[in-house]
């Protein structure tokens, strides 16, 4: 399969990559860029574990062709916080006990970030709608919703800076 050269922004950094033209964005992220935070759960857009933010929108990276990322801005979980300086959403997920096995967590957090970037003070119902494409099987949905609410509140109070 022919290699295609792409220019895109990865977590704020201008990046040039080459990828086979039939590969999906998740492959580009995990195998070419080596960013392992995005997970494959189903490979067909049902579970949301591979969610990343592309040009401000949460997408299932398994359903986007890698070549569609040309010229776009990609944010993965590695582009948020780090252990010594976590993003308010990451901190809230830990504090609210919204993490069990953790496999859905990067996708959950990125869906939540795409929501808060667009709507900083969502209602509970808006949070549920925005997170409806992300499955959790350890079943921590209530805590996940609470974590998003908590991050939204703390960011609104100005305690936290994005």
């Amino acid at each position: 399969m022919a290699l295609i050269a792409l220019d895109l922004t990865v977590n704020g950094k201008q990046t040039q990559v080459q990828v086979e033209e039939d590969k999906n964005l998740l492959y580009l992220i995990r195998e070419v860029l080596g960013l392992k935070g995005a997970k494959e759960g189903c490979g067909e857009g049902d579970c949301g574990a591979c969610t990343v933010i592309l040009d401000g929108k949460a997408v299932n990276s398994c359903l986007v062709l890698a070549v569609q990322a040309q010229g776009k801005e990609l944010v993965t979980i590695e582009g948020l916080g780090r252990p010594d300086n976590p993003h308010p959403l990451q901190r809230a997920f830990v504090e609210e006990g919204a993490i069990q096995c953790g496999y859905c967590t990067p996708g959950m957090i990125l869906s939540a970030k795409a929501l808060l970037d667009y709507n900083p003070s969502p209602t509970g119902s808006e949070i549920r709608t925005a997170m409806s494409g992300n499955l959790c099987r350890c079943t921590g949905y209530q805590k996940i919703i609470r974590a998003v609410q908590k991050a939204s509140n703390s960011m609104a109070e100005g305690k936290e800076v994005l």
Partner: protein
Amino acid sequence: MGLKTVGQRVPRVDGLTKAVGQAVYAGDMEMPGMLYGKALRSAYAHAKILSIDTSSAEKIPGVHVVLTAKDIPGINKFGLAILDQPVLAADKVRMRGDAIALVAAESGDIAEEALQAIKVSYEELPGIYTIEAGLADNAPLIHEEMGTNLLQHTKVRKGNIQEGFARADVVVENTYYTQRAEHAYLEPETSLATIDVSGNVTIWTSTQYVFRDRRQIAPVLGIPTNRVRVIQAATGGAFGGKDDITTEIQAGLLALKTKRPVRVTWSRAESMVCSTKRHPMKIWCKTGATKDGRLVALEGTVYSDKGAYCSIGHFITKKAGLHLSGPYHIPHISVDTFAVYTNNTVSGPFRGFGILQSALAHESQMDMLAERLGMSPWEIRMLNA
């Protein structure tokens, strides 16, 4: 006294690592020279294997090895409780998920191409898809050497069942059916196996029980247990579904044969077809109570659809029978359980271990008894708990 941990909210020790995406699951691991392993799955639920031709697959550039049953150095069996499941089916397949051949290649795409190039000829056998068909006279045998499809029959006896029902003023009798269920953990099964210069095998895997894994891996690889090291990577959910061997032996065999690190990751579709499921059960229940609501007798039968292999399902089926009285005191009990092999996907552990299936039966019985007696569902439960 102020305690730092007891009674306090404590964050998960691995919470932050997971929140920032740095937790390492087996599928996130890579090693120099790592190959990608994949398994060819049976096209039928029940069939004789007449021949397997791997010659075209072996010629594909990038394919390092193609293994079939004859290449296994040790025993070709595994199982959580009973060794009844082949690593690679040799003479026949017993369910759609049975693996027939393993491939290790330079990439997942090449491994997939090699699987397509393997030619297997089958002679389809009559399949058994229900408990009734499995127990029918002259039913085709799934494990011929057993002489029956009945894996296990257990009896629970307490008091005197005739005496119990003689004291009953009301009797409720019903049959309940529960469905097969997949755990659907978000992380599909994955293992990465390596072999060192001394022949020691190390396997990082998504599992629930490393010691039971190594006890099943070593005999297949034909090496002593102390030369197999199993390390649990961050595990993306399991719920009983990773109690059994999944990818561990496949990765181990391929590493042993190629002397290279090999990672085996099942697709979601593969996980659905191959991994253990919650046992479908057929539960008949007859419960007797006095007119003031006291339970006096329970008679029942529990039939479980084992699928093609035991896993630890003989115990799970027995446990469903042991719990058929629920959390209630019943003086006279007679329950029989039957674990039955079929050609469906193997059933195994799943949250509750057979107790959920029983709970549907005993709690439905309680509601119906309460209705018959004009009691509240709460009252009848408190009276008997």
